[in-house]
């Protein structure tokens, strides 16, 4: 039996996940109150999460002459109406001030000769995003009232009578289990990748768009604690450079490259220009035999090559290496594109925790911000900052004077579970082999790449059955050390997310967004489903809750 050391901590605010939203929230609390903040981060806040490699632009910005309403209208249309306008507007109002804050911290933003930010289209501004995370992390480290615990993988929330009291987890670099209690908890663990078989399932299986280390932990913890979730069926499928899975915005919006098929026909206008329609068009063109599909960079002037190579070095260096290895610059060849495997990510689509306008979840004292929070698609980096700020300010208002309450039972049972995994031996299955099995099931039966993202109800039933079997097997896994135990928990988290995702896909009996929920039994949009599909896990089963579109400017949980 492997015994773990234990560590019990009390703090005012616990932030789970030191990424974009988590770091910004910590900074906000430190600057607006005297509360002590603890960040629990599974890796190291310097480069953890979505911002690791850098980002190419501020995707959500209110450019000169536009308004937050303009932004909300755009995001609403792109999501075919299934959004929370209160969330979109409250985030959009902070896009610019949070950007200005980052600039103060050292982020480089492109300016014209009059000192004005240079916009890219109607909603973006151009930056050098290579070091955006180290800049943020440095500011966080400088705050006296923030403690950072790196390499601490949180597995569960401590919740009693629907009130969040803290969280438990273990260090991946030593044999210590942690129980942390706080007045309020902010969950900021990002979205979920690795649910479906990826584009490159072999050696480069982690060469995916979304960080393979964001495994949906925050969703899973909330689901298991009975938090309400929304819109998981609005999966996100990204259109990316083939193989490197590098972002395409820099060539599509940046130099205006059009989507063309192998015959050279521009097809994007044929299928529509929303995010999901752009993916759909590409899938359809391939199905019709018109593939491969490309972004036509071969028509750009070669004077742009060097800046494109540099721009990619600042966010996706693999694409620059690919151009150089091929011996041809962007202006000399088109960039082949493909859809990725589906992700659950609230920064792009609307999946995640169901929150009130202040980003408090349906569990009291538990807040959610960034990709883990639902209802507010296309919020991206600045939206994660904005939600971190909104949640932080509400925590100060509502919970600064709350009592810290302990509840040891959760930790004791978790400690037992950790030690059992570390002490066990399983010669048949590993986290890795079960992950592959899960990805295959989701790919084949729940609308992965191999079926062109489409599914029917019979397939979903099978997927559900097979995921249940894998959940049973995952309960029997063992691990050599605490680091490998993290892989066991990552798998379990993903399986929980898969279960809920399947339930959501089944509940929305229509096709509201091509590819994102391409339901072959119900291929059309049905006005009866103009509303949210939400869910709650209670007594071992997932209950689906249909909710009407929120009209209020401020939304508060009612039941």
């Amino acid at each position, binding site marked *: 039996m492997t015994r773990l050391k234990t560590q019990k901590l009390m703090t005012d605010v616990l932030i789970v996940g030191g990424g974009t939203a988590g770091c910004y929230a910590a900074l906000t609390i430190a600057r607006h109150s005297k509360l002590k903040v603890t960040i629990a981060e599974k890796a190291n806040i310097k480069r953890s999460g979505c911002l690791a490699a850098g980002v190419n632009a501020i995707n959500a910005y209110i450019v000169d002459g536009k308004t937050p309403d303009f932004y909300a209208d755009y995001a609403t249309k792109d999501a075919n109406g299934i959004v929370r306008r209160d969330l979109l507007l409250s985030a959009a109002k902070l896009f610019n001030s949070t950007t200005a804050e980052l600039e103060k911290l050292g982020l480089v933003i492109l300016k014209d000769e009059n000192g004005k930010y*240079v916009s890219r289209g109607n909603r973006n501004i151009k930056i050098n995003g290579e070091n955006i995370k180290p800049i943020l992390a440095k500011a966080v480290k400088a705050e006296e009232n923030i403690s950072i615990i790196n390499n601490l993988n949180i597995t569960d929330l401590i919740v009693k009578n629907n009130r969040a009291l803290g969280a438990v987890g273990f260090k991946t670099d030593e044999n210590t289990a942690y129980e942390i209690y706080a007045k309020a908890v902010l969950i900021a663990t990002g979205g979920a990748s690795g649910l479906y078989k990826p584009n490159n399932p072999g050696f480069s299986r982690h060469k995916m768009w979304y960080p393979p280390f964001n495994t949906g932990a925050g969703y899973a913890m909330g689901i298991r604690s009975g938090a309400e979730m929304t819109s998981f069926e609005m999966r996100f499928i990204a259109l990316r450079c083939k193989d490197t899975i590098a972002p395409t915005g820099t060539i599509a919006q940046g130099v205006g490259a059009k989507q063309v098929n192998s015959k050279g026909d521009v097809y994007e206008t044929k299928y529509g220009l929303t995010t999901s329609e752009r993916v759909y068009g590409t899938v359809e063109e391939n199905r019709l035999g018109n593939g491969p599909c490309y972004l036509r960079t071969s028509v750009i002037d070669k004077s742009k090559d060097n800046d494109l190579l*540099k*721009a990619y070095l600042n966010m996706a260096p693999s694409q620059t290496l690919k151009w150089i290895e091929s011996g041809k610059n962007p202006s000399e060849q088109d960039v082949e594109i493909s859809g990725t495997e589906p992700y659950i990510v609230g920064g792009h689509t609307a999946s995640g925790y169901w929150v009130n306008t202040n980003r408090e979840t349906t569990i009291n004292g538990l807040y959610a911000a960034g990709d883990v929070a639902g209802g507010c698609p296309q919020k991206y980096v600045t939206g994660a900052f904005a939600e971190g700020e909104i949640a932080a300010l509400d925590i100060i208002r509502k919970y600064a004077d709350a009592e810290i309450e302990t509840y040891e039972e959760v930790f004791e049972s978790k400690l037992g579970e950790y030690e059992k995994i570390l002490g066990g031996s399983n010669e048949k299955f590993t986290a890795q082999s079960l992950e592959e099995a899960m990805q295959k099931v989701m790919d084949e039966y729940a609308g992965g790449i191999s079926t062109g993202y489409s599914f029917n109800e019979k397939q979903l039933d099978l997927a559900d059955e097979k995921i249940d079997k894998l959940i049973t097997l995952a309960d029997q896994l063992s691990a050599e050390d605490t*680091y490998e135990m993290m892989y066991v928990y990552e798998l379990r988290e993903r399986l929980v997310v898969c279960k809920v995702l399947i339930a959501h896909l089944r509940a929305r009996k229509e096709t509201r967004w091509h590819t994102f929920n391409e339901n072959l039994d119900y291929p059309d949009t049905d006005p009866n489903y103009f509303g949210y599909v939400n869910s709650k896990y209670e007594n071992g089963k997932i209950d689906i809750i249909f909710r009407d579109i929120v009209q209020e400017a401020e939304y508060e949980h009612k039941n």
Partner: protein
Amino acid sequence: MSIRIDKQKCVGCFQCTAVCPGSLIRKSDTGKAYIKYPENCWGCVSCVKECRFGAIDFFLGADIGGVGSTMNVSYEGDIIHWNIHKYDGTQITIDVNSKDSNQY
């Protein structure tokens, strides 16, 4: 997608170990860094940028079209030199000024 670490150049500072968002890099018995789970590498190149000794090379796996070129970085003030050693023996360096914004 992966990286390789040159044992000769590695001085054992373990900055790469600290920074990897997947915590994939470990300390070997001989005090050098090695990637324990190469197939779990995201290819974010955080470790490549963190290593001030040019000991970490980044390359593309054959399954995504890689043919053997590698890339690492060196620094000079605000300039990041991205040194690309092509599979055919030639070398290309692209300089990026970290004070300059992307143009696109």
